[in-house]
């Protein structure tokens, strides 16, 4: 059975939106012929999943950290009883928000697949200055769900300020195909920080579609940590749509075994006086692959732009691969845009420095890898959120073994 046939069959049992499903079927799953999917063959992972088995499950014991406001999702479904904040589904604001963001990721067929499922569409509205970061738990179980899909919309009202952490964890044995979307509308002068940490089981696959539209003087920060899953793909599309808007998109992927992480970011400077900055770092061990594609586009009349982008990769073993494609498309002349990319191994001199001071090589390597990574984490402004991300990394560095 072809993939399109499979989707048609599996989705017939679900409540889905015909228009988006049509768009997906028309484009099909992305193939290697699509430049943005050149290094990731989604089809290979796709066939292992059965879409019809999308079921809800409940969480039992939950420990809540008091420093956060918590929201819980299991297999893409909202758990109202355990959550501190309310998310709405089916609100009229949801429709208008969708309409405003409709041009973002419009060419990504996997995004249309998320959109085609109407039951897991949520809206979170943020007002005023939130002292505590919002911690969104996404948990995936092994038994019930083979395929999970949810779309969370966040409306950051004018002058609001919030930090959101979205954590993705699963049971070790889970074989979920997670195809998620998060859409942000950052209104005038609002500040929003979004941190995604992904520590899924090694049999899981995650495709995360992140979209953000930033209005006048708005600030948006996106930070991604990918440590788990056999394949994680991040589609990030940010449009700076008002003067004075700025955004930062940072990320870190720490990979081992045969893991693969593929980040595709697109920053669109649509108005003058906008700024963006990006820093993506990858640490690849064993036979893992790290892929980064970042495009900065400056529109014709968007003058006085500042934009920079940097991708750094650290290869730790023979079979590890890094692919990097930093790209610029500039149609205005009064701009300052720069990008850079480096790939290499740990410097012998730095290791020698440690060893000559009695630090064993293995420990020195670990320290250097951590230092390489923490540099990115320090970009997170909110202290509680930064500490959370550091904890996640610490856990993952424990098992790091350099060849």
């Amino acid at each position, binding site marked *: 059975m072809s993939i399109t046939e499979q989707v048609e069959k599996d989705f017939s049992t679900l409540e889905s939106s015909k228009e988006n499903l049509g768009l997906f079927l028309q484009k099909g799953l992305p193939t290697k012929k699509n*430049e943005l999917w050149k290094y990731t063959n989604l089809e290979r992972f796709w066939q292992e999943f059965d879409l019809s088995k999308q079921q809800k499950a409940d969480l039992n014991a939950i420990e809540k950290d008091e420093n956060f406001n918590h929201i819980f999702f299991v297999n893409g479904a909202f758990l109202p009883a355990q959550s501190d904040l309310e998310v709405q589904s089916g609100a009229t604001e949801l429709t208008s928000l969708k309409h405003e963001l409709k041009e973002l990721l419009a060419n990504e067929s996997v995004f249309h697949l998320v959109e085609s499922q109407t039951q897991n569409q949520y809206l979170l509205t943020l007002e005023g200055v939130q002292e505590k970061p919002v911690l969104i738990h996404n948990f995936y179980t092994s038994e019930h769900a083979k395929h999970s899909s949810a779309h969370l919309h966040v409306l950051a009202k004018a002058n609001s300020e919030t930090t959101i952490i979205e954590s993705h964890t699963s049971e070790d044995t889970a074989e979920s195909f997670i195809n998620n979307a998060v859409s942000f509308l950052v209104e005038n002068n609002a500040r929003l920080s979004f941190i995604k940490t992904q520590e899924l089981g090694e049999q899981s696959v995650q495709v995360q579609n992140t979209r953000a539209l930033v209005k006048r003087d708005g600030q948006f920060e996106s930070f991604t940590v990918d440590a788990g899953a056999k394949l994680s793909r991040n589609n990030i599309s940010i449009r700076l749509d008002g003067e004075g808007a700025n955004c930062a998109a940072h990320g870190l992927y720490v990979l081992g075994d045969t893991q693969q992480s593929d980040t595709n970011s697109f920053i669109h400077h649509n108005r003058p006086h906008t700024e963006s900055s990006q820093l993506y770092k990858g640490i690849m061990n064993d036979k893992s692959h790290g892929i980064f594609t970042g495009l900065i586009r400056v529109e*014709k*009349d968007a*003058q006085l732009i500042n934009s920079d982008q940097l991708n750094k*990769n650290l*290869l*730790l*073993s*023979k079979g*590890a*691969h*890094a*692919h*990097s*494609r*930093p*790209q*610029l*498309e*500039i*149609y*205005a*002349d*009064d*701009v*300052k*845009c*720069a*990008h*850079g*990319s*480096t*790939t*290499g*191994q740990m410097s012998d001199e730095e290791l020698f420095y440690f060893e000559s001071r009695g630090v064993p090589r293995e420990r020195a390597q670990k320290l250097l890898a951590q230092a390489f990574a923490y540099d990115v984490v320090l970009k997170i402004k909110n202290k509680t959120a930064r500490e959370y991300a550091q904890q996640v990394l610490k856990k993952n560095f424990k098992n790091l073994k350099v060849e």
Partner: protein
Amino acid sequence: MSFETKIKEEYKWGFETNIEREEFPKGLNEDIVRLISKKKNEPEWLLDYRLKAFKIWKEMEHPTWQYSTIPEIDFEDLYYYASPKGTKEAPKSLDELDPELLETFEKLGIPLQEQKRISGVAVDAVFDSVSLGTTWKEDLEKAGVIFCSISEAVEKHPELVKKYLGSVVPPTDNFYAALNAAVFSDGSFVYIPKGVTCPMDLSTYFRINAKETGQFERTLIVADDDSYVNYLEGCTAPQRDENQLHAAIVEIVALDNAEVKYSTVQNWYAGDKEGKGGIFNFVTKRGICKCVNSKISWTQVEAGSAITWKYPSCILQGDNSEGAFYSVALTNHMMQADTGTKMVHIGKNTKSTIISKGISAEQSENVYRGLVKIMPSAKNARNYSQCDSMLIGDKCAANTFPYIDVKNPTATVEHEASTSKISADQLFYLQSRGVDPEKAISLIVNGFCKDVFKTLPLEFSVEAVKLIEMKLENSVG
């Protein structure tokens, strides 16, 4: 700040030479391929090579990946062979050539006679499709260097041509490589024997003269063990309203310890302000560092052509081999340039350097597209890339699309790029000291390109600076 146009400089090399010429009927089919081959008295194996390439080409589709928008090319509406009449028998010396032809070259600024005496650069001039004459032949022969048209090489040194033709760019490589392999008319052939440092710089000058003609020349440079050669190439074409096609192939083979430097100043007619006419310049250039310690360097100044696709590449196969790419691409009017390089590291300790400077003015589009690939076998490979773009005017575009694939952990790869406009501070500084705006811009642009210009041979370096100045004269507003 506004800089008024001072002079409207038109394309200086837009003249046409009225020479009777011989050409084949329009269109492309097997018969034309056979006819070209017969015309040139080619051996059986070369005809087979052409026919095979033609078959491959027929099955290929025109590429669609490109960034630039190109009007559809009707391959049936082109002449595939044109030669100045009277060159049926190869001229024995330059004196036998049509005086009008020689005058053309004089106008172009390559007085073959003069150059012979003064500069000591050996020139092979290709006019439309036929190679006209090579200067300094005897001196080169003494050193053992073979420098002649490719047709002559097929006749006199078939074993060398047969061994290396298509070994770097096979007909299957891409659409235009296949087309060129089927219909290539002439070009230059260079062979530097073992241990020889070529006594003078070699140079080819290309010119498209005839109407509705495609020019398909082919250059093959083989540098044997421990040899060295510096090769220069220049191009112009008359000014016409319709587009003309130029699809060339350049192949370089560098063996043990050999070094080849290849420099180009490309100034094909670029079309007028509205984008009418101009040359489509679709060229495949590739060199292979086949053996240990070999070096290939590409230097190019791209200032012409309506549309350029050109990616001079290096395959670094031998251990310790080095590749370099230095480029200045200047676009104005409605020009579209999509150029860059590929560096494929296969051998151990291979090194590559990429310096690319793009300047876009008016409504032009300038794209850098490059690939740096480190194969798992390339231990300790090293690459450094730098691509800077400068924008002049708010209707132009500058894009950068680098691909970096690293499959060996011991490799070190660095890439950096920046895009900006001419800094107002620098302009103000110069103007406040009495330098007029045009001069100031030209100074700043030349400074921006300095890293590349300094790698050019002296005579080209002077030409390049002038060319950039002239091109920018009516672009600054």
